């Protein structure tokens, strides 16, 4: 047992002498080395993600970056945000938000990737469904209307 754990234990007892559900809330204090360890791991993974980005893995670049970011995010959520030790309902809330996040992006990507693909008249549309966000073409120089003075000659 680390001194920190003992300290937390002692604090809980000094406060109440009875466990959860008593007159006071009893904090669950994590040892200092857990926080320092998590922070060091986060710094190492930041270095890894920067280093890996200098190497070209083609299409895998994106997935590697997201994978490393997700490891970092999980460490922050589980330890700094105490989800590992918390009521599991809080974890459920976060995960359900992420599920809807995935549905949102997934369905939007479906739409954009396949929009108009079932339309027999797609080539007749004024709006180009294949490139809906294209930057406007550089405006063509409008022919200057002939000046009245010149028109007389």
């Amino acid at each position, binding site marked *: 047992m680390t001194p920190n754990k003992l*300290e*937390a234990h002692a*604090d*809980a007892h*000094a*406060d*109440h*002498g009875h466990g959860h*559900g*008593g*007159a*006071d*809330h*009893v*904090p*669950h*204090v*994590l040892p*200092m080395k857990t*926080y*320092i360890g*998590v*922070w060091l791991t*986060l*710094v190492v993974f*930041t270095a890894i*993600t*920067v280093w890996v*980005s200098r190497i*070209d893995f083609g299409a895998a*670049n*994106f997935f590697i*970056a*997201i994978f490393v*970011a997700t490891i*970092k*995010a999980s460490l*922050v*959520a589980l*330890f*700094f*945000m*105490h989800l590992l030790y*918390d*009521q599991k309902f*809080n974890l459920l*809330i976060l995960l*359900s*938000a992420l599920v*809807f*996040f995935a549905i*949102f*992006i997934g369905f*939007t*990507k479906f739409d*954009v*990737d396949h929009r108009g693909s079932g339309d027999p008249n797609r080539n007749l549309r004024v709006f180009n469904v294949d*490139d809906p*966000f294209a*930057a406007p073409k550089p405006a063509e120089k409008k022919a200057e209307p002939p000046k009245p003075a010149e028109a007389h000659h």
Partner: protein
Amino acid sequence: MSSHAHAAAADDSGEPKSPQYHVAHHFDSADVQFESNKLGIWLFLAQEVLFFSGLFCAFAIFKNKYFAAFVEAHHHLDWKLGSVNTLALLSSSLTMALAVRAAQRTKKTEGVVYLLLTLGFAAMFMVIKYIEYSHKFHDGLLPGKHFTAHGFVHPEANIYFGIYFMMTGVHGLHVLIGMGLILWITIRMKQGYFSSRYYAPVEGVGLYWHLVDLIWIYLFPLLYLVG
């Protein structure tokens, strides 16, 4: 032990622990009150994730659509400044977590020091963000019709900067709001409001602050690194 019992209600300087604290009558116990408080914060954080999901969605769709333009545009971001900012936010998360830990152990001075350190790291993040922004303003790398930079092979590069400014701007706004909240918590901590009996506001602000860090953990590789 009587000395033990006496220590129960006081912190290390002999002050009573969170004298203003009480369990509201509609809660069964102190634990129920604490957990309800935290549940509310988590629901708010879920909303925050969904709020940012709109921007992440825009980024995903446009990046897919104009990949070459995004690769070209992202070279205008300084990955070194981005890395330093990542370290600043990660460190601020550590000190915030340690401030919560100090509050849990009724260590008032320790808590104030950690909160001030958190504010320092947050300020460092904002200063670097300011340097990055002014550099982009100077180069005309602004969103939409304000995009005046020349020499891009892909004209859609302005879409990248539109998304960049929205994502980092809204994130930066969260950092500023977080700094305000941390300042409030620091003052309350100094006044002796928090102790092992009552530290829910410290924990709540901490959770919000970690979420701001979480968002940046994804923003950094997506905007600065992935080509």
